[in-house]
Every structure is written in C-alpha cells, then in structure tokens.
C-alpha cells in the first residue's frame, strides 16, 4: 500500500448516545531517525507521522501527536459518542509535508 493510505473502521450504524470504537491503521514507515540503514550503515532520516486529528461532522474529537516511537504502520484506537448521524474524518500529516484524509459514515438508528 502507498505511504499515507489509511484504513478507517467505524460501525456503519449506532444507537443515539452509543459509544463506539473508532480504529485506524495508516501505512507509514515511521522511521525514528535513529535507525541504521543495514545497506549503508548510515542513519535513515526521520520519516514519520507527526499529527492525526479526528473529526465528527467537522468538529474536533481528538488530536494525536506522535513521533518515531510509534510502531510502523501505526494502529490507533479511540472512542466516539454518537449523538447524530454523520461523517468521521481523520486527517493526518508527516514530517515531510505528507497530508492525507480519510472519511467514514455512521448512521444513527
């Protein structure tokens, strides 16, 4: 998968007021900048996600700051209290200017 590709998993439906799990996996090498490249013996420059924001209907739900200490292809799990139907959006960036977004819909039943 391409760097920055994200999988966002939320339940398709929820009862009003239900607290659901929001899970995501982002494809990214998360190089901390302290790893020796086995080919050359030189340090591999830092290349990792720095920030990930979660929105629901454009309102900020959570903001995550991270560095190279998070594992490669980061997995993140959070919860969301669903008061209304809407769109979950995750927007994330890395230290080299990469910026991506991913959305998923939840319907209140």
């Amino acid at each position, binding site marked *: 998968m391409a760097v920055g590709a994200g999988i966002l998993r939320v339940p398709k439906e929820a009862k009003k007021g239900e607290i659901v799990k929001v899970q995501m996996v982002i494809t990214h090498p998360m190089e901390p900048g302290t790893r020796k490249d*086995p080919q050359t013996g*030189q*340090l591999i420059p830092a290349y990792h996600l720095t920030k990930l924001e979660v929105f629901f209907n454009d309102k900020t739900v959570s903001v995550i700051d991270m560095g190279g200490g998070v594992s490669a292809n980061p997995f993140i799990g959070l919860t969301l209290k669903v008061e209304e139907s809407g769109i979950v959006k995750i927007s994330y960036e890395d230290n080299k200017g990469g910026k991506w977004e991913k959305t998923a819909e939840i319907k209140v039943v």
Partner: protein
Amino acid sequence: MIPMKKLIFVLVFLLGFAGASEWFSDPISGIEYAKKEQKPVMFYFHSEHCPYCLQMETFVFTDEKVSKYMDKFVVISLNVDTQVGRLWSKRFNVFGTPTFVFYDPKKDTVMSIAFGSRSKEDFIKLLFMACERSHIKKC
C-alpha cells in the same frame, strides 16, 4: 614553540576521525579494506521484515557506546535474501537473522558467530570479546 601549521594539521586530522564508519555491502572490498586498515571484520547478516534486526538497527547500533566498539570493526552487512548474502550465509552456516560473524581477514578464519538480537550491554560484551580475540591493542 609548536609551529602553527603542524598544530592545525593535527587538529584537522583528529576531527577527520569523528565521522561515522561506512558499512560494506561487498565482502571482497570489505575484507581488502580490513586487511589494509588492520581491523577485524564483523559480518552482519540481516533480512527484511525481521523485527529482531530492526531492533538492533533502531536501538542498539546507534547507541553511542555501541558505536565506539563497532568502530573497531569493518562491518560487512549482507541481506541473506540476496545472491551475495546467500553465498556467504552458506559459507558461514548462517541459518537465521540477525547473525554476527566475527572474522579475521588476515588468517581468513572465523573467530566467533552469534545469532539473535541482544541488549546494548550484551552486544557490547560480544564486541569486546571479539575485539580481544582479534588481538587489537586497545579494546
């Protein structure tokens, strides 16, 4: 009275040694270089996606103390899934990664082999023992 030119030359010479050592991916040139520099060789056999190799590369090799000991060796780093890696794996009976093979380039003999990741402290012990075996004056 120390001549200015000589002092500057000495300072520049010393600073030149502050750089990180390069690793060889070609065993032949690595061994030749080691012979010339009178240094023992450490082969680092690794494979892609092996988390134990990743562990060594991320947290052990770049440790300051470990680097100091590693600088006493010429490191020949081989991916076991490449042609040259497979060839030399067979030669040293390497069955997994990470594997460290300490080799005397002058005598063309293997001094010791160690398989598996280890902590910084244990890796320094390993390097120190290999260093002593190779009769380097200051280990």
